[in-house]
């Protein structure tokens, strides 16, 4: 009876498929919704956010200085709290006997400067007798006299607000309080520790300036000014970070960049809500359009020349204090395969190298996948003699090609990761070990075939040629996806993977500019700088996709 019924039921796989047909879209929908919600909730601007609870010892922003020397000093002491690195130096101004004090953070300020230009004039030179009457009259005259006659320092400010005083002192400014004077002076003495300007590590060039950004924002903006001497270069300053404030500068050419683009960047920067943007990577991820995409929608670079080049094309650069990485928006896919050197070399060699990079990007993405699909699905597509060699070399390899390729690819990724993290003295040792593992040993041990070693080596070398490091990581990740596609469906799978990838690239946008431009949408003028870099004489227009205010490079 039962068997009769069963025989009328279609095969169970059909039921499973029908179930999946219904369930999978619903599940996907739920998943994507959930993702979207979590993404929105974490970074979006919330108008009615409850303000953080007031701490007891915090200084209220409205608190003013009283003008009474002793009281002010006490309230400053109280506001700064029990901080060992804050120094209070009290002295009397020579000639009048007026008491004064400077407050500063040791280590953040330039002691020499303060000694010679603040302490010395006040303590040693003092006020000549003829002028003393000036000094005793009122708070305003004292203020005017000191700032105009006694402090030979370029940066000087006056404040009445206690909070501002505390914040500036903690940022490296020296504060000067004088008896009988309302408020305090803030004297620019901050001396940021900065390293020398060196060649950027992550983007090495053979030909080109050996200059890279440093961690100090002022240095970086200075570099931009130095390398792009143009009155239209605009550096707009912002502050980001809720708890730890960081300076952020948006740089663009005001007569080139599309105002809409600049507005968009400003809006997105202002929407950033985060405790502390440690590095420009934080900014990058908070302002990009598609969080789920493996492709970066903001380019990062250590090279001022690259930034200047981008600015002149009509892009916008974002510099953050504390990191040598500047961000460039919008970015298109072709930019990730371009190096400044393309433009420094002659156009034929530059174009050749660029084509080479495109080829190697394809190899880095697809070589292991193609290997797997040829070996496992389409042995008939390999030239006969090569097929015979491969068959012989794969004798005794115990794994199917996917596992084999995974072993080697994972091994080489581990090696690379280790190579980055390792302290310098151990580096060469790892190179030897890695070389042995990847090279002969794995083959001799019979784990992988010699042919695969070639494939893996070519893949690894190819992925090193990509000039933007983060784009290289993307390709490395996608390579594994391609391998799985290949292992399941062979060449058909590889083609499907590539189509999916292309369709994703086509819908992706970076700050409103299509990621795949100038290919999709097609911009014939922009193709001059796509795969082949045309002679500079021919490239008379700025990229049209950026909609620049001034479309001509030469007037």
């Amino acid at each position, binding site marked *: 009876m039962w068997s009769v019924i069963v025989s009328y039921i279609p095969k169970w796989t059909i039921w499973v498929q029908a179930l999946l047909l219904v369930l999978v*879209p619903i599940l996907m*929908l739920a998943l994507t919704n959930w993702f979207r919600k979590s993404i929105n909730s974490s970074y979006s601007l919330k108008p009615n956010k409850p303000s953080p609870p007031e701490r007891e010892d915090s200084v209220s922003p409205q608190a003013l200085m009283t003008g009474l020397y002793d009281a002010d000093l006490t309230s400053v002491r109280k506001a700064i709290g029990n901080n060992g690195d804050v120094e209070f130096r009290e002295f009397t101004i020579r000639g009048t006997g007026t008491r004064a004090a400077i407050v500063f953070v040791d280590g953040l300020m330039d002691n020499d400067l303060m000694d010679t230009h603040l302490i010395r004039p006040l303590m040693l030179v003092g006020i000549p007798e003829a002028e003393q009457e000036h000094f005793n009259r009122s708070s305003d005259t004292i203020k005017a006299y000191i700032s105009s006659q006694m402090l030979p320092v370029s940066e000087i400010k006056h404040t009445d607000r206690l909070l501002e005083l505390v914040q500036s002192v903690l940022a490296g400014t020296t504060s000067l309080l004088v008896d009988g004077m309302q408020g305090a002076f803030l004297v620019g003495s901050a001396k940021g520790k900065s390293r020398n300007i060196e060649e950027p590590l992550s983007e090495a060039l053979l030909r080109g300036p050996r200059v890279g950004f440093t961690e100090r924002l002022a240095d970086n903006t200075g570099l931009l000014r130095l390398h792009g001497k143009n009155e239209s270069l605009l550096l707009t300053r912002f502050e980001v970070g809720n708890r730890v404030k960081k300076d952020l500068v948006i740089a663009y050419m005001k007569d080139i960049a599309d105002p809409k683009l600049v507005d968009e960047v400003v809006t997105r920067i202002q929407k950033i809500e985060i405790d502390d943007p440690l590095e420009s990577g934080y900014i990058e991820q908070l302002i990009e359009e598609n969080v789920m995409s493996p492709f970066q929608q903001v380019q990062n670079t250590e090279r001022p020349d690259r930034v200047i080049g981008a600015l002149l094309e009509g892009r916008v650069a974002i510099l953050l204090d504390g990191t040598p990485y500047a961000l460039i928006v919008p970015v298109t896919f072709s930019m990730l395969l371009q190096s400044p050197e393309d433009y420094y070399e002659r156009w034929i060699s530059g174009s050749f190298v660029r084509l080479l990079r495109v080829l190697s990007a394809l190899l880095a993405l697809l070589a292991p996948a193609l290997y797997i699909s040829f070996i496992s699905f389409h042995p*008939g597509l390999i030239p006969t003699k090569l*097929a015979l060699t491969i068959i012989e070399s794969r004798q005794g390899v115990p794994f199917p*090609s996917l596992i084999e390729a995974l072993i080697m690819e994972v091994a080489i990724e581990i090696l690379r990761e280790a190579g980055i993290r390792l302290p310098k003295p151990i580096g060469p040792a790892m190179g030897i070990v890695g070389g042995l593992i990847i090279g002969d040993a794995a083959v001799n041990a019979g784990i992988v075939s010699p042919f695969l070693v070639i494939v893996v080596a070519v893949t690894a070398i190819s992925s090193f040629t990509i000039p933007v490091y983060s784009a290289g990581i993307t390709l490395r990740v996608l390579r594994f996806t391609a391998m799985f596609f290949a292992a399941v469906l062979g060449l058909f799978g590889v083609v499907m993977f590539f189509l*999916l990838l292309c369709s994703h690239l086509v819908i992706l946008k970076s700050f409103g500019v299509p990621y795949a431009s100038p290919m999709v949408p097609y911009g014939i003028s922009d193709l001059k700088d796509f795969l082949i870099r045309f002679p500079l004489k021919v490239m008379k227009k700025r990229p049209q996709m950026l909609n620049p205010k001034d479309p001509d490079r030469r007037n």
Partner: protein
Amino acid sequence: MNRYIRYASVLSASLLLFLTTGCWSSNEIEDVSVIVGLGLDIANESRFERDINQQGASYPKKKVLTATVQIVPPITGKNEKKSGGSSSSPSKAYLNEQLTGDSVFQIFRQFSLRRDRPLVAHHLKVIVVSSELARRYSLEQIFDFILRDNDIRPSCLVVVSHRSALEALSSNEPGEIPALYLMGLVDNRYRSNKIIPPMSLIKLDSTMQSGESFLLQNVVTAQGEHKFSGAAIFKGSTKKWIGELSQYDLEGLLWVMEDVKGGSLKTYAPKTGHTVTYEPKNSHSTIIPKVQGDEISFHIKIESEGRLIEDWSFPEIPSSGQYINELEQQFEEEARKQIEQVLNKMQHVYHVDVGGFGDQVRIKHPKLWKKVKENWDETFSHAPITYEVKMNITDFGSSTD
């Protein structure tokens, strides 16, 4: 929202594609037996087969043909570790397996009982048919499975062996793969006018469909070595082997059929009897069918340019214009002799047209062709053929006289 639905449907569609697909399972390249050569012989059971038959290991079949598959590389399954290039004994680079039966396909599947790894014919390069088998059975019968099969590429070369096909697929040379060797011989066409244009499966199929008589390259074998020599003639009506053309015939035929690009034409100088040889560099032949009423006749025009490549005359004769003219005529005479001989064989010995004369009639006189095509070979045998040969020596090599 709309975008997410689209994502979801794309993802689920691709997921379903994975589930519904038929080619889930891969087959690693080292787990298949790649065959590069296939030989078809009249039934001749190997010792192995006789032995197992005595143990009752047989199935109902007639003994019609023996198929030989050439498997490379000959993996024995023992996974011998190779020690660099210097292997101990020069072993064979291929493995010939034979089974007998009356269905080519059944024999192929029968190999599954015999070999641990399935046969794949993607790399099949050469099919050798023995003349003996082709005499008994029509090629259409023998090749039916091969033409239907999807695994076998239509670019596969078909040749006929004078003796058994197994012999043609065997070699004494260590490291040589006979199938690839035969395949490679075809590439020498620019050096010899004794090799007919390669007959691939697809060409064979269309030729057989058209009903024309045709040639297949003939392989002769001795002591494990092979040579292309002449061609086997197949009658269009039966698709059976009816005879062979010799190398000399083939040269004559190729002058008519093809634009010869190489090879040699040797003759003897008129007075002294010394050897002289001509190397055609560029030649052109046209077959012109002439129709008067129902009478068909042909005129063949052959023009060739080439170089005097060898001259044994002693004492040396300077290459004057007159001398060259003499030689040219001599070469023309030689070529004419070759052509006459092959035409004679075609028209009077075998009564077949394998020179493409019918094609020309079909192209130039399509209406007439419809009437004569049924009995073309016979019509052709009685058609008068005239020919003119023009040889031009344009070059004497690097000799300085």
